[in-house]
């Protein structure tokens, strides 16, 4: 998928002026509220006409002010999942799901409704009135409804932000499976760094209506650790735990990590850089359950703290410590250091 967009749209008091090209299948659009993310979605989907510019997807021009081309939304083959599900209240779940599918020419349908219904776990909901669905169920139906139009690009405008924390992380695996299985390129719009890192490979950062940079989600997260109060969030994708007493033991690098929560198959855990303590020598006995011998990679100055990149048996972790501690421990690139992490510090996202 190759999307080229060069767009200008002026509202009173706000100007969106962006120019970018993305080629990955999993693209994020990141920015604070008011940065122009939702305007961008409306322009790309054809719901609002830009003042000037050009949109091209895989060689087809969807909009071009110079050549007076402006395809209506129904001919762009760009589906949208909005922040709210916008399920049609007079149709049941099944009719909602098939609304776009029925309007897609047969030759272009490449996703089988039954398979999708299984992937999204919607069998039980099909005959339900959409008013009776929970927030997470509604969003799954909205996703399925959009995917069934076999779009060449799916826009997701903060699809998770109306859901509470726990629910969000229940939906993410569904999203990932759907996109992997059906190979649908998407633009994931969000102001959540975690969602960017869990969902995307490439990020377009919007700031006050302009593209301030185009980078990878991890690079972006590292950049932002200097001003994020919570430090840097290490995201660990781990699988196949073994029971270890009350805890779960996950293989990690050449060792293992012990933690409270766990489950079969693959899980993603969040670990704040502030929850990784550093020791110069091997501590004799600690209450924390995880003791890893790591080598210090890069060291970044963050005002009154220091970000320390650790290589622990081939796996990367980032710890943040206050400056005095870093000086006392003599944290430099290349030295060996012990990282200590409590089993309770890991938060399982899904």
């Amino acid at each position, binding site marked *: 998928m190759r999307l080229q967009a060069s767009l200008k749209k002026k509202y009173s008091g706000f100007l969106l002026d962006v120019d970018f090209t993305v080629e990955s299948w999993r693209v994020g659009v990141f920015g604070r509220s008011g940065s122009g993310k939702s305007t961008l979605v409306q322009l790309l*989907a*054809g*719901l609002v006409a830009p003042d000037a510019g050009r949109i091209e997807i895989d060689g087809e021009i969807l909009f071009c002010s110079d050549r007076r081309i402006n395809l*209506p*939304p*129904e001919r762009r083959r*760009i*589906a*949208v999942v*909005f922040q*709210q*599900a*916008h*399920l*049609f*209240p*007079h149709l049941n779940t099944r009719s909602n799901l098939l*609304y*776009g599918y029925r*309007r*897609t020419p047969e030759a272009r349908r490449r996703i089988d409704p039954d398979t999708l219904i299984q992937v999204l776990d919607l069998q039980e909901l099909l005959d339900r009135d959409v*008013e009776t669905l929970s927030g997470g169920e509604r969003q799954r139906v909205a996703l399925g*409804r*959009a995917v069934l*139009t076999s779009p060449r690009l799916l826009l997701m405008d903060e699809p998770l932000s109306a859901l509470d924390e726990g629910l969000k992380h229940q939906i993410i695996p569904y999203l990932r499976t759907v996109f992997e299985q059906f190979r649908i390129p998407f633009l994931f719009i969000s102001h959540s760094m975690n969602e960017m890192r869990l969902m995307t490979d490439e990020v377009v950062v919007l700031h006050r209506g302009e593209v301030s940079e185009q980078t990878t989600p991890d690079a972006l997260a590292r950049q932002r650790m200097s001003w994020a109060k919570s430090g840097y969030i290490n995201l660990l994708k781990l699988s196949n735990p073994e029971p270890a007493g009350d805890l779960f033991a996950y293989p990690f690098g050449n060792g293992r990590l012990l933690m409270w929560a766990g489950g079969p198959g693959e899980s993603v855990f969040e670990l704040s850089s502030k929850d990784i303590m550093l020791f110069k020598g091997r501590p004799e006995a600690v209450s924390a359950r995880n003791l890893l011998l790591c080598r210090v990679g890069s060291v970044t100055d963050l005002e009154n703290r220091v970000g320390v990149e650790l290589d622990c048996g081939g796996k990367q972790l980032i710890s943040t410590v206050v400056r005095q501690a870093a000086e006392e421990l003599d944290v430099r690139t290349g030295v060996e250091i012990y990282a200590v992490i409590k089993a309770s510090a890991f938060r399982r996202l899904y």
Partner: protein
Amino acid sequence: MLDPTTPSGVDGPASGKRFAAMVNFRRLTMAAVTAIFLIYGGLLASLFYYFDGAHFLTTVASERTLFSVGLSMAAATLATLAALLLAIPAAYALSRYDFPGRQLVDTLLELPLIVSPAALGAMLLIFFTNPLGAWVQEHAMQFVFATAGVVLAQFVTIVGVAARFVKAAFDEVPPRYETAARTLGATPSGAFFSISLPLARNGILAASALTWAKAMGEFGATITLAGTMAMRTETLPIAIYMRLSTADIEGTVGLVLLLVGIGLGALFAARLLTRRRFND
């Protein structure tokens, strides 16, 4: 908790007074409700002073009355259908699109409400005396002092109001559903027929019932344009007027009750069509 700087007595009576004021206000508004009920209820009840069962039956069952009822209902139905045919698309445009002259049209919709029906009928009559109107009369259809004039008079009276009511129904349907439909491949007309129209259905049905009842009761424009010919242009309201002018009180009472019954039945049907709520 007592604040020592505030005299302890002040707070109690003050809030007590406020409470009393609230109760009185509630009573006052309820009294207004009662007054309205008594005005209409009293008027209806007073009809029964002259109600005569046998006379009622002979009046209602008379050929002339049955014709009036039939004409009124048929004309009201035709006028309502014609009005909706125009009002639904117009109301949708007024609800969804911004165009020059929108405010003007929106205001004109209420013309029949602010102009006396007699004036509206006079306007129609005058229209048919000008060259274009005369041409229509000669080559298309006879409206003046003709049965078709009844339908036209009712249509002109209700079409604006119908558009106003239907617009309210569309205004209640959030445009986000149409937006979602468009991104799922629906054309503008496709989204209208599959989303907006079904979602506004209850409102449109209620609007239809109200419009129909209003057409049933139309008098001024009808009598001005179509006249009072028994068995030709005499609608139920006109029949009431004619009956009253011959001082047949019992007969008038019978016809009024009939018209009230039909009208209230239609409004009750409209009330039964509950309003759909939108959550998301």
